[in-house]
């Protein structure tokens, strides 16, 4: 073998650069920060490359993450669309025009035909005070009690159906016009079914959150388990790096980045799945809307929601990795 180089000479060479002084483990703060940032960059790129160049080992993890994200993502998209739709319907429900009690039936009929000819009115229907009382008697079961009343307390009602496509402000304007009629006592927009729809939407939203939380837990477990396996595969490396002075943070870093990338790739795959789903459904939805004379178009996932999905996935991946690392890494000591 060639004669070994003199370490003395080596040391004599060293002080040319400031970080290579005789007491070699002293590195200036600036260099240390640079080194730290570089180390992060290096680990980030390295772990990402490892995932991308050897996707087979972790493809299952990506898919599980992607699917776990796609489910609540799709439900969220659906709810988003439904609530958009319900906003459009807000005032297109029918309205009840209560007449003053003194109004006679023939006067009511005159008003009826006048309303019918107004812009934006699709249909009108008159319920006389007597009809209203009969209906109430039948539905309330208060027959006997109602007989005790000296006179019919119920007013006549004209039910007005605005045109379906009538914009909300026009519906409200119509209601105001009707309210100003001298024979009209009050006008009520009939929003009961909308209230029910909103309640249903609120409930569904709650369900999406619960489901999302469960699936998030699933992502944590899947990432945690994948990281546990990769820790197990790298026990020797971890031991050796600790022997030559690696801090816990240094040992953790590649695993945490791996978790982060898992989340990111899973999130991106889920974007693709959601986009495919949207493309598949939006055509038929447009056709359906056209049948109802509406130009409604299915909204894709909003940019904000998409971002939340991706960042949430990355956070979950990171947390899953952290959880696994905390549980398994400290047991590996040289």
């Amino acid at each position, binding site marked *: 073998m060639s004669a*070994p180089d*003199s*370490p*003395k000479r080596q040391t004599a060479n060293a002080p040319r650069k400031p970080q290579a002084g005789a007491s*070699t*483990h002293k590195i200036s703060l600036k260099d240390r920060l640079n080194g730290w940032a*570089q180390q992060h960059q290096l680990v980030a790129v390295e772990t990402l490359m490892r995932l991308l160049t050897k996707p087979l080992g972790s493809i299952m993890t990506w898919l599980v993450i992607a699917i776990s994200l796609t489910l609540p993502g799709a439900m969220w998209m659906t709810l988003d669309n439904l609530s958009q739709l319900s906003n459009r319907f807000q005032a297109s429900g029918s309205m009840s025009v209560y007449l003053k009690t003194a109004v006679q039936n023939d006067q009511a009929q005159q008003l009826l035909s006048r309303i019918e000819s107004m812009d934006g009115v699709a249909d009108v229907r008159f319920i006389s005070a007597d009809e209203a009382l009969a209906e109430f008697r039948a539905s309330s079961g208060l027959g006997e009690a109602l007989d005790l009343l000296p006179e019919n307390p119920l007013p006549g009602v004209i039910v007005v159906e605005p045109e379906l496509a009538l914009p909300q402000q026009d519906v409200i304007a119509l209601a105001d016009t009707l309210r100003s009629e001298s024979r009209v006592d009050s006008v009520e927009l009939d929003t009961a079914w909308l209230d029910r729809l909103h309640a249903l939407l609120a409930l569904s939203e709650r369900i999406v959150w619960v489901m999302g939380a469960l699936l998030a837990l699933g992502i944590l477990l899947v990432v945690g388990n994948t990281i546990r396996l990769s820790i197990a595969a790298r026990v020797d490396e971890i031991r050796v790096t600790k*022997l030559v002075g690696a*801090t*816990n943070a240094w040992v953790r870093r590649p695993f945490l980045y791996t978790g982060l990338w898992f989340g990111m790739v899973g999130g991106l795959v889920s974007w693709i799945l959601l986009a495919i789903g949207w493309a598949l459904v939006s055509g038929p939805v447009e056709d359906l809307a056209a049948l109802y004379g509406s130009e409604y178009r299915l909204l894709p996932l909003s940019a904000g929601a998409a971002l939340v999905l991706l960042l949430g996935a990355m956070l979950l991946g990171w947390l899953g990795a952290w959880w696994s690392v905390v549980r398994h890494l400290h047991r590996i000591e040289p």
Partner: protein
Amino acid sequence: MPMVRFDGVSKSYPGGKEALSKVSFELARGEFAFLTGHSGAGKSTLLKLMLQMERPSEGQVFVDGDCVNTMKSSQVPFLRRKVGVVFQNHQLLFDRTVYDNVAMPLLIAGYQPAEAARRVRAALDSVGLLGFERRNPIELSGGEQQRVGIARAVVNKPQLLLADEPTGNLDPELSEEIMKLFLRFQQVGVTVLIATHDIALIERMGHRRLILDHGTLHDSGPRAGFERGDHVRT
């Protein structure tokens, strides 16, 4: 302040007999010493105590003035960075090149890649393995692997160099070369402690000897060579 101080150190492994009993000694800065003793005498155990790879059951271990056995685990990495170790089973990683193995302590300590490259080449050169950078350690002979381990131990220019059977797989000629290499480190102020069976070599070199016998330490031998390393680094 001595580089290493053992103060009444005993070590019993759980369920085992006592591997070290009441060991006390000091190594001055820049001193060069051998640690000998029969197989199972406790040499590896003594070295491990200095890195907190094991903790003593009794007594205290000081390295560079810091008490190792009570050191917080967050401080241990920084202790290990100033101690270069050649392990008995060399502890190389076979999933990466010789270069990456040797560069590891530097990357961990946060060296710039260019500076790290320069030092790795210097370290490989010093053990006669220049040109082996791209090889995988698994392709190397036992002696070559051991020298890669030595290169890794010295690459960060440690203050204290510990070696556990560093010449175990080497022929006598190469063993002597390696020992001379260690001596050169001592000449630039590094404290060196070498555990070895190689009595013939020790006799030839004539330095301070710490002899372990069933866990008990006998200090003997000349302290030649120490004079040369007496210039304490500041």
